[in-house]
């Protein structure tokens, strides 16, 4: 175990009384409570934390926050592991196990580093140019293994994630000086405020800088404000919470990393009336040769490691800058005890408070200098600085680079806001807003503390006013600290060797320039061609440098070049967080039919049909699935079966114009139906395509019960309402879906009537009094029942609809009375075969999105109907009457033996090339008939009765004969018995 050689003797916000043990890349280290994995690694002097994406070059920490491009790690083991986290966002806990991604066997000794030696052969578009012959797919596997980041765990994620919804008046994103001032202003007016902070601690730069606010040290002022906010009931403060996306109408997604309790992460969806974006700014790296050696970091990161974690990134530092903000930062490092070997500034000599202070401290300042080269294999040992006076080599183990600041405009841009380029400050700042939001502080390009406080406070007050709430205005917080000059001069790249722009994706300045030469001049093209700005950091440190180099190369300005589109999420979100609780049993509701428990007790095997759990068959001991199905079919054909059809759609349609309305909805005429009678009907959409079928009952002159298929119950109810509300608002009709109020128990078979007589109905069920296709409203076994004599099986059938709560009682009664007569419960598999034997159309199985009523033999019905109806005009098109359309027919094998597979294509001619002449839609080996039968859509099939067609089965083609689909009881003697 190595010591924490880089830990400063004092300072930082860590708790030195609580040491923590952790493992990284197979070695064990110690850190403290309050560390991140990154700060703990740095404290332990670990310089190489990963390997680069393409060349497997050794990489060290570059940043201290979410913008870190190099230290990409997998945390945890097995199914709980999380790949592709930045070490800077992983809070240290005792026993933490992490390993770098993209290296093997370890980051320090990586086999893939050989790629670095080939580096000069891998320019932009290398893959596209090299792996073209004979096909990219020959190489894809090997290339993807060599490149890429972490590996997703193989098993399901056992962690718990949850979703949370919230509304607020003002959402403040970021808790630095500007965000905190905004939250304080809004909250003291009584608004409902949420303030979210992506880091573990609130405060942003107040944590890492020595400032005075309202006469108090910055951290004390922060603590006081947090206490005040925390005492307000309408204020919600969320740390460890990243605003990941900004969506329409001020909907934002927040990802909260939960540290206590069983939940790992919480995904918030917040609707805010106003949003204040105080997202801060990220420092830019500088682009110079070999700028990716471990030890080369952002200057602001070095400062943060000192101030927040008490860690010195090195013992002897060189600072390289193009702007004035570096001087205050360098001074802070000097005061913390880090030796500053020199500050190298690319500009001519200038003076500011920081310069004066550094000179007074005896720190060498090198003007008009650039770092031209860096030295050291696995870690920085020195740099070569070029000035007009010549070159000199400086020894150092860390280089702090400060290339200016990028306001974090991501959320502002996601919200549809525009950006404007500030040529003096060399940064994109928020321009026009796209939604009810305002950017403040460094996120708005204001780098001085006094401006951040004033701007944030004003935005908080403005947000309250724009919410229409009373404003309690007070004096904004002030500071007497002079922010100092922030002047900057462009230095987009130092020419020479390989200079990295995107560290995470291994994109160099040369790659950007080559892409421009090859005419990938749009930033979006540049991104896809070079991978600049992709992957987990999405270019947080690289985008502006990359597009500035592209602009230079193309002779355009930076605003002319523009940025790539900012899309959610701001930082990666675990898929589990999107999933939330919606997994396994909670993925979607499983609907159970009213008699479900009885089915279960009787050995029913359930499957999902349109969201309903339905018995496929009832297994008896020792029985296979096929055997069970055939037994059930035989029961129906020889005695009786009881089937639960409760999901069948039931919609009441009532009103003086109900008959007229249904005439317009159905392909056939409904208004001529007599009360107490049923009619089978087809519905089409306006394209003339069949969308549903079912049986309509006329309960009274102005009252109908519309039956739909189970899967369409909801859709057809909505369909009827859409026509009534949007097209025929003048019709006096109301509809009411009652599907789940009524259970449907279907008693079918030659003994069905005898069984129903035993069960007892309070109306005459004799064949003459209650014939096929009639309806009675009465009682069965004393239970209120709507009984339809309608058949799906071809046998005498009673569809008994009773209130859902009484279904099981009636079911048990029927089974009890029927069992001595051979009654059996029937599952859906038997039901479908019974239907196929009878040749009844099954919408959705026999029909598809091209099938019209004419295709299924309804031509005469359509031409008979004078009234307009939905889809009629489409059915009048001559092409819908063409003789070569697919028609619904029956099909049987010529040899009487070979089963016809569902889905098989049909051909009238030899060979398999060319248009299909149809396909098989339903098939079974009929238990009743003792031979295979099928239903099919066949080209011109109705005119080809008796002809043969080739069935293209997987095992080889064979001949089948086109026949009527009515295989069983074609005269309907059993049906009408």
């Amino acid at each position, binding site marked *: 175990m190595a010591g924490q050689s880089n830990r400063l003797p004092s300072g930082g916000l860590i708790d030195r009384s609580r040491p923590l043990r952790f493992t990284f890349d197979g070695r064990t280290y110690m850190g403290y409570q309050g560390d991140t994995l990154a700060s703990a690694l740095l404290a332990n002097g670990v310089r190489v934390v990963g390997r680069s994406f393409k060349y497997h070059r050794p990489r060290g920490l570059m940043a201290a926050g979410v913008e870190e491009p190099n230290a990409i790690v997998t945390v945890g083991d097995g199914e709980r592991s999380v790949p592709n986290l930045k070490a800077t966002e992983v809070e240290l806990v005792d026993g933490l196990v992490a390993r770098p991604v993209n290296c093997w066997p370890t980051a320090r000794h990586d086999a893939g580093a050989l790629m670095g030696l080939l580096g000069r052969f891998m320019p932009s578009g290398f893959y596209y140019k090299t792996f073209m012959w004979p096909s990219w797919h020959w190489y894809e596997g090997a290339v993807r293994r060599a490149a890429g980041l972490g590996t997703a765990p193989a098993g399901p994620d056992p962690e718990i994630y949850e979703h949370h919804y919230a509304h607020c008046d003002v959402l403040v994103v970021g808790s630095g000086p500007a965000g905190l001032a905004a939250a304080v202003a809004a909250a003291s007016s009584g608004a409902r405020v949420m303030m979210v902070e992506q880091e573990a601690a609130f405060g942003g730069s107040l944590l890492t800088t020595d400032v005075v606010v309202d006469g108090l040290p910055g951290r004390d002022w922060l603590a006081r404000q947090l206490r005040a906010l925390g005492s307000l009931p309408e204020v919600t403060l969320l740390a460890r919470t990243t605003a990941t996306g900004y*969506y*329409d*109408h*001020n*909907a934002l997604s927040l990802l909260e990393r939960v540290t206590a309790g069983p939940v790992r992460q919480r995904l918030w*969806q917040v*609707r805010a009336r106003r949003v204040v974006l105080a997202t801060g700014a990220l420092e830019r790296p500088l682009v110079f040769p070999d700028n990716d050696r471990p030890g080369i970091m952002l200057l602001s990161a070095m400062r943060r490691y000192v101030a927040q974690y008490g860690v010195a990134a090195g013992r002897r530092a060189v600072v390289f800058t193009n702007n004035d903000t570096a001087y205050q930062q360098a001074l802070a490092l000097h005061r913390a005890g880090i030796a500053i070997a020199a500050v190298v500034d690319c500009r001519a000599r200038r003076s500011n408070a920081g310069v004066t202070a550094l000179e007074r401290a005896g720190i060498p300042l090198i003007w008009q200098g650039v770092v031209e080269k860096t030295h050291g294999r696995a870690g920085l040992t020195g740099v070569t600085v070029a000035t007009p006076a010549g070159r000199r080599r400086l020894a150092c183990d860390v280089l702090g680079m400060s290339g200016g600041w990028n306001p974090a405009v991501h959320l502002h841009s996601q919200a*549809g806001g525009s950006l404007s380029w500030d040529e003096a400050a060399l940064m994109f700042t928020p321009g026009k807003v*796209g939604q009810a939001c305002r950017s403040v502080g460094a996120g708005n390009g204001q780098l001085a503390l006094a401006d951040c406080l004033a701007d944030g406070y004003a935005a908080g007050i403005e947000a309250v006013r724009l919410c229409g709430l009373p404003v309690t205005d007070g004096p904004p917080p002030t500071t007497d600290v002079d922010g100092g000059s922030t002047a900057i001069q462009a230095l987009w790249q130092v020419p020479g060797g390989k200079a990295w722009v995107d560290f995470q994706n291994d994109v160099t300045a040369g790659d950007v320039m080559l892409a421009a030469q090859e005419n990938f001049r749009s930033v979006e093209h540049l991104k896809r061609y070079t991978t600049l700005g992709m992957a987990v950091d999405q270019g947080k440190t690289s985008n502006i440098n990359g597009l500035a180099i592209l602009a230079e190369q193309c002779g355009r300005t930076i605003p002319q070049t523009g940025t790539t589109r900012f899309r959610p999420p701001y930082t990666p979100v675990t898929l589990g967080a999107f999933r939330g609780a919606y997994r396994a049993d909670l993925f979607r509701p499983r609907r159970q039919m009213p008699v479900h428990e009885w089915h279960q007790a009787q050995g029913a095997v359930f499957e999902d049909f349109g969201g309903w759990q339905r018995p496929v068959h009832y297994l008896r001991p020792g029985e296979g699935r096929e055997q069970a199905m055939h037994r059930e079919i035989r029961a129906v054909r020889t005695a009786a079966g009881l089937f639960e059809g409760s999901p069948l759609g039931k919609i009441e349609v009532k009103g003086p114009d109900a008959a007229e309305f249904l005439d317009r909805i159905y392909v056939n005429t409904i208004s001529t139906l007599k009360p107490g009678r049923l009619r089978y009907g087809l519905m089409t959409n*306006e*394209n003339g395509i069949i969308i549903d079928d079912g049986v309509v009952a006329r309960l009274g002159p102005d009252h109908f019960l519309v039956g739909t298929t189970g899967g369409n119950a909801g859709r057809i109810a*909505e369909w009827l*309402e*859409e026509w009534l*509300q*949007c*097209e025929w*608002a003048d019709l006096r009709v109301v509809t009411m879906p009652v599907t789940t109020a009524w259970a449907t128990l279907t008693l079918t078979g030659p003994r069905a009537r005898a069984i129903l007589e035993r069960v007892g109905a309070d109306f005459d069920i004799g064949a003459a009094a209650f014939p096929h296709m009639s309806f009675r409203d009465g009682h069965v076994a004393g239970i209120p029942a709507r009984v339809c004599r309608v058949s799906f099986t071809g046998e005498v059938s009673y569809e008994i609809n009773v209130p859902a709560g009484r279904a099981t009682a009636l079911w048990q009664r029927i089974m009890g009375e029927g069992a001595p007569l051979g009654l059996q419960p029937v599952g859906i598999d038997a039901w479908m075969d019974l239907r196929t034997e009878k040749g009844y159309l099954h919408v959705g199985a026999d029909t598809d999105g091209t099938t019209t009523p004419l295709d299924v033999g309804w031509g005469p019905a359509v031409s008979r109907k004078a009234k*307009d109806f939905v889809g*009629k*005009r*489409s059915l*009048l*098109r001559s092409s819908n009457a063409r003789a070569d359309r697919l028609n619904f027919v029956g099909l049987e094998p010529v040899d009487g033996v070979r089963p016809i597979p569902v889905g098989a294509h049909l051909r009238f001619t030899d060979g398999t090339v060319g248009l299909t002449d149809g396909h098989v839609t339903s098939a079974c080996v009929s238990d009743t008939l003792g031979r295979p039968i099928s239903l099919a859509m066949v080209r011109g099939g109705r005119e080809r009765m008796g002809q043969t067609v080739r069935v293209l089965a997987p095992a080889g083609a064979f001949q089948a004969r086109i026949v009527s689909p009515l295989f069983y009881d074609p005269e309907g003697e059993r049906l009408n018995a």
Partner: protein
Amino acid sequence: MLLISCPHCGPRDEIEFRCGGETHVVRPGPAEAVSEDAWADYLFMRQNPRGLHAERWLHAAGCRTWFNLLRDTVTHEIKAVYPMGHARPEVA
């Protein structure tokens, strides 16, 4: 996620609604009197403006009522909500 003001239920998340596409499309009829071109226009041809678009929405997980709204297709701003059968209002 749009925030849509249902005329009956007030502002609700988009997830409660179903968009029915362009509104004020006139259904031609009777069927026998409609030309092929006019029917094709009715079935398939829709406005696709950059800017204000009049469309109908159903509050499917609420009051189940259809209504019209005017939405800016660039900013997604909803400029007006009005009942079925009413004429498109003038908005600035």
